[in-house]
């Protein structure tokens, strides 16, 4: 779908300027535009159409009356959420989990890619890549099952701690451990997969630059610092912005599966709250309001980071 878009875009400017105007261009390249119809329809039906339902955030949704027919409530649901005892906890957990993920989990695939790039032995580098990719294909449920088995009071990790003379810890039932386990297992699962793009970008760096640096006597670390990193900087910035794009809603299923009353203090996030209150208790309007609030914060963050990136590195999404 993306190739259709780009090829359509790149081809149109090269047209001779015989009577400009979009209709003419479209008529000329109708086959490419036809291909574009599909993604446009996808967005309209699945991404813009449902926006209609957002109005229930300002209404008291009553299924029998339908979305349009339900009575207006105004900002009542938002006020209820802001006044709720859980507001600050939900907000802090949502932001902190993602912030820590970004700070810790974001750089690791880059390091891995640089590492893989420096490995001389093709065989070993392929082997390393495969090993790190594999966890990506395990489903979330299985991952949480593995965590439960490994970290339970009678699991291997606690047995090891006991053997070394420590006292066993209930890792999954302690609020203090939740974020560490969540982010740590995310890194383990995804670093290989996320490094693919960086590895691809690194292979696109002009080898002459490395040779020139070598001639000038640059050490390996210097070459990484002055050639490799600047070479993939635009990719890093774009991926960072993309990550910010889903800043507020990472890992809903995984968090829900790992949640229990004892770690709720640090595992209760907006998306799981929306699920437990909205879908399980049927408070659709209230949770639609919470979801909308969440998205607005996300949008603001995205715009801010994009703006910042454009100013500092001249790379940005738009």
């Amino acid at each position, binding site marked *: *779908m*993306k190739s259709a878009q780009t090829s359509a875009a790149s081809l149109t400017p090269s047209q001779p300027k015989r009577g400009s105007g979009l209709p003419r261009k479209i008529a000329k390249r109708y086959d490419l535009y036809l291909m574009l119809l599909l*993604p446009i329809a996808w*967005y309209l039906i*699945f*991404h813009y*159409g*449902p*926006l*209609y*339902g*957002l109005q*229930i*955030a300002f209404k008291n*949704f*009553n*299924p*029998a009356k*339908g*979305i*349009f*027919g339900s009575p207006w409530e105004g900002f009542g649901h938002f006020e*209820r959420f802001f006044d709720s*005892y*859980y507001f600050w906890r939900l907000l802090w957990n949502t932001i902190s989990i993602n912030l820590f993920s970004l700070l810790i989990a974001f750089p690791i695939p880059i390091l891995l890619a640089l590492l893989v790039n420096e490995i001389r032995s093709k065989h070993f580098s392929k082997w390393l890549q495969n090993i790190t990719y594999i966890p990506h294909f395990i489903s979330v449920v299985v991952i949480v099952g593995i965590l439960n088995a490994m970290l339970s*009071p009678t699991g291997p990790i606690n047995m090891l701690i006991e053997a070394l003379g420590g006292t066993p810890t209930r890792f999954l*039932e*302690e*609020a203090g451990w939740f974020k560490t386990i969540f982010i740590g297992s995310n890194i383990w699962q995804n670093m290989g997969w996320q490094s693919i793009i960086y590895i691809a970008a690194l292979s696109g760096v002009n080898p002459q630059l490395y040779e020139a640096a070598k001639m000038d006597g640059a050490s390996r670390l210097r070459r990484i610092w002055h050639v490799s990193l600047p070479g993939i900087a635009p990719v890093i910035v*774009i991926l960072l912005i*993309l990550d910010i*794009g*889903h800043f*507020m*809603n990472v890992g809903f299923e995984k968090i829900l599966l790992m949640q*229990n*009353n*004892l770690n*709720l*203090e640090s595992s209760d996030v907006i*998306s799981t709250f*929306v699920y437990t*209150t*909205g*879908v*399980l*208790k*049927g*408070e*659709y309007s209230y*949770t*639609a309001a919470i*979801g*909308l609030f*969440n*998205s607005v914060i*996300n*949008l603001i963050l*995205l715009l801010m980071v994009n703006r910042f990136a454009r100013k500092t590195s001249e790379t940005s*999404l738009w």
Partner: protein
Amino acid sequence: MRKHWGKKAMTMMIVSGLILGGCSGNGNGNGNSNSGSEKENTPSAAAGESAVKTDGFPIVDEPLKLKMFTRIAPANGPFKEMPVFQDYEKMSNIQVEFIESPTDGFPEKKNLLFASNELPDALYRSALSPLETVRYGSAGQLIPLEDLIDQYAPNLKALMEEYPEIRAGITSPEGHIYSIPGIVTLGSARTDKRWINKSWLEKLNLEVPETTDELYDVLLAFRDGDPNGNGQPDELPMTARKGLQIVNFMAGSFGLDLQLGYNININDGKVEIWSGSERHKELLMYLNKLYSEKLLDQELFSHTEAQYLAKQGTGNTGLFYDQTNNNFLPIMDQYVGIAPQAGPHDDRLQSNVAPVPRDFGAFAITSVNEHPEATMRWIDYFYGDEGSTLLRFGREGEHYEMKDGIPYYTEEFLAIEGAQGKMTPYAGGGAPHIINDKVASFINPPQVQEAYEQLEPYMPEIRYAAPMFDEATAQQVNVLRNDIDKYFEEQSTKFIVGALSFDKWDEFQATLKKMNLEELQKIYQEAYDKMAK
């Protein structure tokens, strides 16, 4: 990549949209057809009366088909293979097609059914909450049943006359009944027994504990005395169902009752929500003591229902709670039912007792149902002895035999593992029918009866069911309780396992107050005043 970004960024924004927007079209479409059929219902009721007989079988001469949404428990097999529905279909001329949803994820499916307005003809074993009942009832998705009960449900009507608390417990303030409960007149089926390991007591020369302090000593002896004689400290002194059920079981020893379906004591007509009270603190401190000394199951907050039931069957457990002895039949002689313990202030109460309309919201008829009269007659059968026997025991000869006018499962049938749960929809709980002493040979054998007799002197005099609020009040209660209950559960759990020290009790109290516990208490007081009148 751009597509990927767009997808992710939008997901949250339209989290409601994806679910609800998709349903909106249907909602509108169905909404129209609904209001249409609703209007038609009234005139057709008159016409329908001639077709639906008020007594005798079949219910209708022309066969008809109904769609019902139901919950299917892990123990059950498909409903269409159950003898009760096969035989009753022939008898009544009404064919029921069940839309089955497993217990896991059932509340979600149920809510989405209403939110999308894609309704079945009726909900069977649906466990609707009072709030859901009022909400969907006043929205017109569930139809009022009081007139139908009057005309087409002789069994249910008779029960409601005999036990006035049923009507009080299911009628909304506007006077409508939107759902029918599962009714339990058998006292023993309304409370869990306290099963203690008799052979361990004998081995260690201990008496049955009469007070909470004695209970502590007994559990300590269970832990350290090696009563199972294998030389290893692997005994499990005490366990309970997952979560805070244990609080409800021990509450009575600390003078805490569970009236009106909530943490409520009623003294001289005054409603008191005891969450955060001194007695509540004592209770949690006691449980914390048991938990931290490993007298209480360390997996209390993580084990599954299946694991809990398995623990009953091992015989390696000192004390646990269950309504019947069905889960430990092979080793039943090891256990005996005991009375609740007296607490530090000499309180001795079995507070975890359900009201006669035990399973609220077990059956409801929706607005799309074109044959509400026939549906009401269909369900009413199960509120009589004959129907309940068919539902619970299946076919005479094949599954049960009569002894002294009471059905008992045959030995051969019970010998097949898992067959009983597959045969009847009552296994797994919540089925809309009557449970009385005539259909309880399996769940109320002599051992369970004895265990119940132990509890009987300590039962609360009156058990008030959860009150029905009008829609606005129900919504208010819901808003208050969403925060309060979540906080209560989370903090109670932490207090028990020791993740939160009791120094923080004042904070707990203050937060509950900030969450407007008093307002909630006032609402319950008003509801009680209306009920007591």
